[in-house]
């Protein structure tokens, strides 16, 4: 029982960060209707931003959020404006051209980072990276707990933004029905640019928060892209609440699977859940909760 609780706690903490990754992805998917296969790579870039600031200037990784999020927001804006939006007008045989484009962007991001930093493993080691504290015999990783609560705060802020502000309403309107949104006077071109920027900014937050926990290397992006779309599918496309549930579910499933089945199975579990959800619950948790 002790082991189970310990594993569950670790899973939920990790799940909080997964949720942050998933929300960015689900926003982009909801508004643009494309799968952003460069999502994990954007996160990787933000990890390197934090790493550079930490190693050269000695800035605390959590403070680098103030740099990495705006930087990645801008990167996202540039990608959407100059690489993805022009494809909307082009006449092509395959509608998936935008998705293929994000694959190209992912490759370019990874390789540029590899060019600059080589493939070496880097780490952001702070005084609290390996610190733990105990509650009722269960150990909590300090870095993950801090990250979890910051992630919760961002998730809450994002939720309020989408529900309460004009811009948030425009984003949701564009996601629901693009043509109707245009008729209501929403500049959907601008909304897509802002949305991609927001998605990139959110995943940047996740990257910076994870920087003290994980080793940083150029290829770390790929697995996180995979996780991001598993979360999105789990939660239901375009659903923020769903992404939170999806993130926590994936975090839990990975921890439990790694403990009770073996480390080898950690990756397969995500993929299996993904296929099962696609088959038996297409639409994800969104279908159950109707949020």
């Amino acid at each position: 029982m002790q082991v189970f609780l310990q594993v569950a706690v670790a899973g939920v903490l990790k799940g909080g960060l997964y949720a942050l990754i998933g929300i960015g992805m689900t926003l982009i998917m909801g508004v643009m209707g494309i799968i952003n296969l460069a999502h994990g790579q954007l996160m990787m870039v933000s990890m390197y931003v934090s790493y550079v600031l930490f190693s050269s200037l000695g800035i605390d990784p959590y403070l680098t959020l103030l740099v990495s999020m705006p930087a990645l927001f801008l990167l996202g804006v540039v990608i959407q404006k100059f690489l993805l939006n022009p494809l909307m007008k082009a006449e092509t045989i395959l509608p998936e051209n935008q998705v293929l484009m994000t694959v190209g962007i992912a490759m370019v991001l990874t390789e540029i980072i590899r060019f600059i930093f080589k493939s070496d493993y880097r780490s952001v080691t702070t005084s609290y990276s390996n610190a733990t504290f105990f509650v009722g015999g269960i150990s909590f990783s300090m870095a993950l707990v801090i990250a979890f609560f910051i992630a919760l705060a961002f998730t809450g802020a994002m939720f309020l933004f989408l529900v309460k502000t004009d811009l948030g309403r425009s984003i949701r309107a564009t996601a629901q029905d693009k043509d109707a949104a245009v008729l209501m006077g929403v500049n959907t071109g601008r909304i897509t640019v802002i949305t991609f920027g927001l998605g990139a900014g959110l995943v940047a937050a996740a990257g910076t928060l994870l920087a003290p926990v994980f080793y940083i290397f150029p290829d770390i992006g790929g697995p996180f892209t995979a996780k991001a779309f598993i979360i999105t599918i789990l939660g239901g496309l375009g659903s923020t609440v769903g992404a939170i549930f999806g993130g926590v579910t994936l975090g839990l499933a990975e921890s439990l699977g790694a403990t009770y089945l073996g480390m080898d199975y950690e990756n397969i579990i995500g993929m299996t859940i993904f296929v099962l959800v696609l088959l038996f619950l297409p639409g994800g948790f969104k279908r159950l909760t109707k949020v």
Partner: protein
Amino acid sequence: MKKSLPPLVLLVVLVLFPLVVRDNYYQHLMILFLMWVVIGSGWNLIAGYTGQVSFGDAAFFGTGAYAAGLLSMHLGISAWWGMALGGFAAVAIGLPFGWICFRMRGAYFALATLALNEVMRNAATIAEGFTGGMVGILLMPTFVSKIPYYYIALALAAASIACVRIIASAKLGYYFVSIREDQDAAESLGIDTHFYKMVSLAFAAFWTGMAGTLYMNYMGFIDPSVVFSLHDISIMAILVGIVGGVGTVYGPAVGAFVMIAVQEFFRSGFFGFFQGLGDMTGISAFLSLSGLLKQGHVLGFGILVIVVILFLPNGIVGDWEKIRRKVFRLRPTGEGA
């Protein structure tokens, strides 16, 4: 007749190629090129013609390769028997997958294929007792010379292109295209879209699996991270397809040629050009440029994808008229001077 003349001339050139060019390196490149023609043709059938973009071609490629490798490992018979079995093994993986996953459309299906890719790789890694796990399978190559492999690859490539060509001009091809253009309309015209998507996937899996068995026999070594690689196989297959031109018979051949050329261009540092220039002139800048090029072949791929999608969304073959107009400043054929 006029239209089939250039491919026939090309085929003759390719048949004569190893007799003229004796260099092992170029023969090796040509074998890789021909292998990618086979994979590209398979991808083109399912994605280009039927419109079901697959991100998981490596699942079929790896299945083919492992079918051949496991035959020789467990039964002790030649891996060439895999040629008879590999394609069908890939179909055997593809059909149940397709039966389940073709209920999903567009991007969802693409993601499911990606998942298949990952599941297959992890499964091959975990099942150590059966597949050898990360240790992989090592075979002694049958031939020392590359020429037999070359002709086998050429035969496969020619057969795959012929297969695509026959399908494209048959009723089946029109069914595929109608599914790509509008699945609901196709359904309402009485086309069993689920069935025909499976047919298309079966062909694609078969050819990709055949390429896998060729790889096993030619390279003599496979492990899960090589043959089930997302980047080196699945994404490369997509690149071959879109660079050449989706939904065209000869697109994959052009795409495979360009991709192999670009890959080697970077990997060898402009075929050793800058290296030689640096050695000759003694300027170290050329040497470092050569080093940078060698590192940057994936970066080159990425940039190529972005450029092609932005400017030639239908690939080199698909947008050939556009290239002729823009680059050569020629008028489209048939309009007259």
